[in-house]
């Protein structure tokens, strides 16, 4: 009857009979009621819902299921995905049938959701009992064991004790001891009923009895929506609102298990199917809890967190650029061989790209139309202990300014990406004799400019009263910029001009060396110039515009020109040349990104805005995110943001990392490379484990007792850094040790065989090989300590609504008395993200919940980002290590 092992293979498919179909529907029913239990437990839908609202709810649920099953069904019918298992098909169809019936029922009958849930349980009990009896009387072909087993018996016995106690307590009262007898009787009864009969009866009848009882109690409103039990002894009590969903969750889990057992025909396969359903439902519940937490915090906090979020359209385009490149990269991946699947996968591959494209078009339309695009919403702030709703919105404005930092950041990302993608063009095409001369010339001038930069930086632009910066510096900057411009023009012009009768592809191929030396030389010179400018205090200009950014732009344009023409020529080139041209295109993109980054650095360093064709690269961009870029504004129209807390957390993390990483990695190196296993290493292991498991608040106590008296006697940022560093230490040590141990011994042996000393081997073989693992460990550890609160309350304090970010870099002072160097900022209290949330809690009614949610949201995002990066990099490096 049941198809045995037919889960994936179409060959052993078999038609299901009524028994199978019915049980599939029953399993679907238990899953539905399990989900309903979760929904009602968190009160998304009230138990007292009835009438039209209830019908609406079930219609929605029906739509969800039909949609889900329908989509899968369509793709399965089209042959894109394989759903051959009769069980999966049965459960899906059963789910639809169940919900149609349910929806019809709640439309016809006037009942509350609680009653429906009760009836659901009763129905499940009935089906399970019927299935068990059908199997017992050999109406269907099953293979039950002699008994349901001691494990199930014990579980039912324990359940029986509980239920018996509850029933007995209700019937005769807890005052007389009779309830114990009832409990024992019920428990023993269920135990016997489970163990003695054959498995089909033993695992269905007790289930049916228990679930049926729960269902009846709920359906008859013995425990209804308004039910309350408030025992005198306890300070709280139970209400129907909490008890009914618990009953439903528990009952449906139980009948799910029993129905799954029946469906697979009892015996070993039945137990397997039943157990797996319970395990899967449990995993589903865990995942939903996790998702709920993250989604809930996001929903609560995102509005406040993005109040007043504004970005100019060009700036938004700059942000979209790296995303565009990522999407293109994703779309380039091969999509398989099978025609149908290729179609579906290609759709998935190009979707992100299309999305980025549409976003970019929308953003660009803002620039063209000249009016802002705004998504308005409201958020709540706390004014005088009263919530007050404010209007705000996220908007994309036509502001043509792009912030220099934003541009630099975006361009550097692209530069890194294309730089990694670029291989080499060495030995391609002609090798003119002057290439080496140019190379040496560029290297010499860069070195000279670097020396000048250092001189000006150390001695000031006008050393000994001589205005060297204004004269020598100016001349060098102008010369460097002009030569860079010349190089980039040469790089693009030479191959395009080519020779008579040569195609574009041939030109680019033959003059590849010119392209490489021209563009990279221009980039190198520009880099040196950009750093020389601010130290010499000059910014030469041609007419109204500055010289250096013009050259940078020119280089970028030239690079894009090379890239585009190489890409164009590549379409009609032969295999080998295609590769060369591809490399050249990537190289051009990399230098273009580099030149744009230098443009941004120039604007940021000199402070002079640069405008071209209506677009401005400015020191102050059009990007504004008040939540993360502003401090708290007391008594302002808008509340401002939590910049001080973010800055505080950043400094805490930086300090802790600086403290813990060298120590942790050093200790890991000693333990794995130098130390012999013995008393000392096991002592260290015990110490590490003790550190790892010590409750965080104890670290706080230690910091308060040990660090604070030695660091100025007051709560301070430095103490917070050190305490978090102590907490980070074991995490770094353990992961680094694992990473170093994972380096194969062959590496060490090969190095030793070459006559390399031990330390040299560690430095140049072991550590580089272990570095990815170490970095991953550090990232994960940092993610963990970034959200640490308890120790910070003790050693850092908790500041609410701080209005000034801490300035650590500007805070260094030198004194004649020990300790000679001081930094008041390091020794002062500051805000941090976790302590800010605690401050909101501690402030009670005067704390603003919406601000707390927003802070929690940002903290969660920061921590999750650390974890995501750490996990992704670990997976990446692990794969790399395994493939090698």
């Amino acid at each position, binding site marked *: 009857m049941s198809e045995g092992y037919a889960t994936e293979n179409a060959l052993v498919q078999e038609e299901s009979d009524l028994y199978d179909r019915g049980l599939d529907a029953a399993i679907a029913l238990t899953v539905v009621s399990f989900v309903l239990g979760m929904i009602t437990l968190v009160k998304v839908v009230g138990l007292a819902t009835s009438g039209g609202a209830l019908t609406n709810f079930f219609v929605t649920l029906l739509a969800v299921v039909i949609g889900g099953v329908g989509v899968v069904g369509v793709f399965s019918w089209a042959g894109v995905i394989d759903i051959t298992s009769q069980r999966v098909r049965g459960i899906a169809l059963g789910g639809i049938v169940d919900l149609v019936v349910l929806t019809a029922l709640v439309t016809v009958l006037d009942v509350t959701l609680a009653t429906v849930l009760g009836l659901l349980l009763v129905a499940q009990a009935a089906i399970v009992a019927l299935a068990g009896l059908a199997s017992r009387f050999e109406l269907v072909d099953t293979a039950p064991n002699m008994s349901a087993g001691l494990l199930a018996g014990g579980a039912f016995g324990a359940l029986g004790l509980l239920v018996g106690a509850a029933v007995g307590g209700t019937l005769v009262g807890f005052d007389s001891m009779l309830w114990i007898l009832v409990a024992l009787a019920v428990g023993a009864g269920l135990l016997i009923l489970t163990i003695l009969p054959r498995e089909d009866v033993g695992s269905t009848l007790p289930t049916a009895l228990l679930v049926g009882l729960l269902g009846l109690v709920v359906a008859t409103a013995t425990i209804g929506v308004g039910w309350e039990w*408030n025992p005198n*002894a306890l*300070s*709280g*009590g139970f209400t129907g*609102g*909490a008890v009914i969903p618990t009953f439903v969750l528990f009952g449906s889990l139980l009948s799910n298990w029993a129905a799954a057992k029946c469906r697979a025909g009892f015996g*070993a396969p039945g137990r*397997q199917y039943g*157990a*797996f359903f*319970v395990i899967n439902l449990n*995993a589903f519940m*865990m995942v939903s809890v996790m998702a709920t*937490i993250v989604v809930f*915090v996001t929903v609560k906090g995102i509005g406040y967190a993005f109040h007043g979020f504004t970005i100019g359209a060009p700036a938004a385009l700059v942000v979209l650029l790296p995303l565009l490149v990522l999407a293109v990269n994703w779309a380039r991946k091969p999509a398989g061989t099978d025609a149908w699947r290729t179609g579906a996968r290609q759709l998935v591959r190009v979707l992100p790209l299309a999305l980025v494209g549409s976003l970019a078009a929308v953003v660009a339309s803002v620039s063209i139309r000249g009016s802002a695009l705004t998504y308005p919403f409201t958020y709540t702030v706390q004014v005088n202990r009263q919530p007050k709703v404010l209007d705000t919105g996220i908007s994309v404005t036509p502001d043509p300014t792009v912030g220099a930092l934003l541009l630099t950041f975006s361009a550097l990302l692209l530069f890194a990406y294309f730089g990694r993608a670029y291989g080499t063009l060495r030995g391609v095409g002609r090798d003119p004799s002057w290439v080496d001369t140019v190379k040496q010339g560029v290297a010499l001038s860069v070195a000279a400019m670097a020396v000048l930069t250092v001189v000006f930086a150390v001695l000031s632009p006008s050393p000994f009263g001589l205005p060297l910066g204004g004269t020598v510096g100016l001349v060098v900057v102008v010369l460097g910029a002009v030569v860079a411009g010349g190089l980039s023009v040469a790089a693009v012009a030479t191959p395009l001009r080519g020779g008579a009768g040569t195609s574009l592809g041939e030109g680019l191929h033959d003059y590849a060396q010119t392209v490489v030396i021209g563009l990279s030389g221009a980039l190198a010179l520009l880099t040196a110039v950009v750093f020389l400018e601010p130290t010499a205090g000059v910014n030469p200009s041609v007419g109204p515009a500055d010289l250096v950014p013009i050259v940078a732009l020119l280089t970028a344009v030239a690079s894009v020109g090379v890239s585009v023409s190489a890409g164009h020529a590549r379409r009609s080139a032969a295999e080998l040349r295609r590769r060369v041209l591809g490399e050249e295109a990537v190289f051009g993109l990399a230098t273009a990104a580099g030149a744009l980054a230098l443009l941004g650095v120039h604007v940021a360093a000199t402070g002079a805005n640069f405008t071209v064709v209506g677009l401005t690269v400015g020191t102050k961009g059009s990007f504004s995110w008040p939540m993360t870029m502003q401090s708290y504004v007391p008594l302002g129209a808008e509340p401002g943001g939590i910049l001080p807390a973010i800055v505080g957390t950043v400094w805490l993390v930086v300090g802790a990392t600086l403290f813990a990483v*060298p120590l942790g990695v*050093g*200790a890991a190196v*000693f333990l794995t490379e*130098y130390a012999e296993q013995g008393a000392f290493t096991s002592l*260290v292991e*015990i*110490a590490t*484990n*003790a*550190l*790892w*498991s*010590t*409750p965080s*608040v*104890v*670290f*706080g*106590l*230690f910091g308060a*007792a040990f660090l604070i008296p*030695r660091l100025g006697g007051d709560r301070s940022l430095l103490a917070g850094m050190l305490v978090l560093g102590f907490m980070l230490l074991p995490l770094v040590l353990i992961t680094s040790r694992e990473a170093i141990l994972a380096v194969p011994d062959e590496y060490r042996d090969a190095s030793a065989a070459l006559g390399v*000393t031990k*330390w040299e081997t560690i*430095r140049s073989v072991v550590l580089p090989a272990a570095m990815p693992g170490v970095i991953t460990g550090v990232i*994960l550890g940092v993610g963990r300590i970034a*959200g640490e*609160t*308890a120790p910070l*309350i003790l050693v850092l304090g908790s500041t609410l609504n701080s209005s000034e970010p801490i300035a650590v870099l500007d805070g260094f002072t030198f004194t004649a008395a*020990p300790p*000679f160097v001081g930094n008041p900022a390091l020794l002062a209290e500051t805000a941090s993200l*976790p302590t800010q*949330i605690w401050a909101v*809690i501690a402030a009670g009614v005067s704390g603003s*919940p919406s601000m*707390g949610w927003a802070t929690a949201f940002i903290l*969660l995002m920061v*921590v*999750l980002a*650390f*974890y995501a990066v750490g996990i992704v990099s670990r*997976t990446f490096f692990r794969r790399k290590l395994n493939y090698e």
Partner: protein
Amino acid sequence: MLERVPATARKTILGDDSEDGSLLVVAIAGLTLVATILTFLFTPAYALPMLAVFVAVTAVGWVTYQAEIARLLTLVATVSTVLTVGFITAFLFSSAFPAFVEHGLGLLIIPEGQWFFGLDAVLPVDESYWNPSNDVYSLLPMMWATVIVTVIAIAVAGPLGLFGALFISEVASDRMREFIKPGVEILAGIPSIVYGFIGFQVLNGFIQTSFLDEGASFLIAGIVVGIMALPTVVSVGEDSLSSVPSSMKDGSVAIGATQWQTMKSISIPAAFSGISAAIILGIGRAVGETMAVAAIMAAGVGLANPLFDVFDASATLTSLIATQYGSASESTIDVLFVAGVILFVIVGTMSVASQYIEQQMKKKLKGQQ
């Protein structure tokens, strides 16, 4: 015997084959470091200049005898890890000592009129049990609160965690595992203050409507702490389940057992000690959890009455420290350190025990025992 000590020490610090003259540099570097630590302990103002001297000496050594100095530096890093634990222990105990001496058994006053396992014959009984102005401190209510919260938390995290571990290690497909395992890790990464804030803002309202309680309760705190301890239980349990050699499972499958039979009769029994280590570790996490408990239950202090009243609320050992430290007087702080010592000892013992169990299991599975 004794004359070998300098040689052994020299070997530990310098390694087997060291260049001549390196001893001097390494010795100076080591001495300056010891001096730095000592100055930080006794005259912290001079620690920074001393550290600068150490850095300078090390820099010189790095140029002249890099290998030896590098070895010294890694040794220093190792020793400082051990020293940190030593300092934590020493400072916790020495700060708690005055309270131990002053109060003695007074730290375990049983509130009058309450049954506490018949221990009132041994322990002092008094009407006032927490009154900083009168110098009366009893940690008994907090210890009992910690017990209640931990029991509820483990009732949540134990079974769910076991099922979760089974799901990840035995049931889930490889692809599914790739998503779920990091997911569990991320769940472990959600900061406890975020849980606490959710509890503070939402769950406390929930319990008022659903459990007829005025506010915070052990029940809610315990459930939240259980969810927080869940990832620990899942990942340690999963580790031990996957460390069961596949040859054992394969053997079971080869004689025709289903996957569930293999799990029930091979994997779980073989990994039993690992799973119990996971649960012990989960208990340790639950005992040490601070912020969620502090945020959900306010700073009130009182013994649950009756003892099993899960709807009561009281600070636990951890949340007592977090909430009271800021405003505490000198003598209260000493008592808080006693709470810290108790936590340190309990959680440390549990951690060491679970590590020991795990090691024994791995040895056993590898056939070394």
